[in-house]
């Protein structure tokens, strides 16, 4: 039969996975920002449709990663509150 300590451990293990996911998102966001800067310089002056699409997609990826991080923080808070109330 499960104990409170066991449930708390399981929640901690899940939060650890989320933290590692957040670390990956942070690293991805940094790389993405570098890529955007690099492309902005290299492709300055291009009116090619494919270049516009690439810029827009990178901007969308940045936005999605920000929203992803915000959602993970809210999830961790909820999980921690539940664990504390056990």
């Amino acid at each position, binding site marked *: 039969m499960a104990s409170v300590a066991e449930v708390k451990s*399981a929640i901690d293990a899940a939060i650890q996975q*989320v933290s590692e996911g957040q670390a990956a998102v942070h690293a991805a966001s940094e790389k993405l920002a570098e890529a955007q800067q690099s492309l902005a310089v290299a492709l300055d002056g291009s009116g090619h449709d494919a270049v516009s699409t690439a810029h827009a997609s990178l901007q969308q990826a940045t936005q*999605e990663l920000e929203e992803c991080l915000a959602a993970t923080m809210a999830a961790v808070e909820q999980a921690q509150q539940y664990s504390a109330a056990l």
Partner: protein
Amino acid sequence: MSLVQELGAQVRATSDDLPVGQVAVAVERLRAAGELLMWVRQESVDPLGVPRLAGAMEHAEQAAQALRVAQDSLLAYLTSIGLAHDGAPGPDGTWRTALREPEGERRERPEPSGAEPPPLGRWWSERVAVLTGHGSPAARSDSAAKEGPDLLRRVAAGVRSEDRDKLHRELGGVEPPVGLGLSALAPPVLHRLAGDLLRHQPRAEDLPALAKQVEPRVRDLLPGLPPRILDIQLRRICRVPVERKDDDGPPPHPADFAVIGSVVAGVLLRLLDREPDSLDPAAPEPVPDAETHA
């Protein structure tokens, strides 16, 4: 190098360097966390962060998709300016990202304080014992793997030698977070190995052929595994949506996906006749075998 070549090389390098792998790793970590919380919260009305995590995963998946569109657009641009050679996609390195330690500082791990380990250890090793068909949980061992990639290679060695006792020992003897982490590490590795076996990106129509090759071996090694877990795992590899039925019952045990992921990786390596050490992220890209196909 001409000016156009120089421009092409820069665009190509930036495209190859887009963090598709990191985002894929984040998706799998969030999926693993969500599965664990789903299992913890069954029968509870408290959301425990599960819907928020599902939302986070969706955003990360959208980000990954946007990055792929950006890569395709950049490669199309290179082709359109006459650099057709630079317009082909490079090898998918997501599996290497998954198996590599994060850059920068090493992740903090809880230090042993002399106190009894949390009871989750029993929960994990008991489930491993059920899956591997052993009567009793494996004892915790000092020589057990401390990192997911090492555990993945040890499990692959057990699969290669068809040694169910070794699987029981290696998987059951680790700290639960190390074991549970396999469900996040394994998917990119599985996708890549299945792609190597099939000699193309795994697709929906490959599911029956892949199942035919993998299923009997997994059944021998994990006699206690619920059949639907393997089905879900293979569907994920082939990017086939997992059908949810009303009579699905309780959510799967989170240890199941961790264990099945590592064992299927070992089976695929065996089918490819590759050594477990080829799962080293620094290992060179294997030379495709002309005879290999599912």
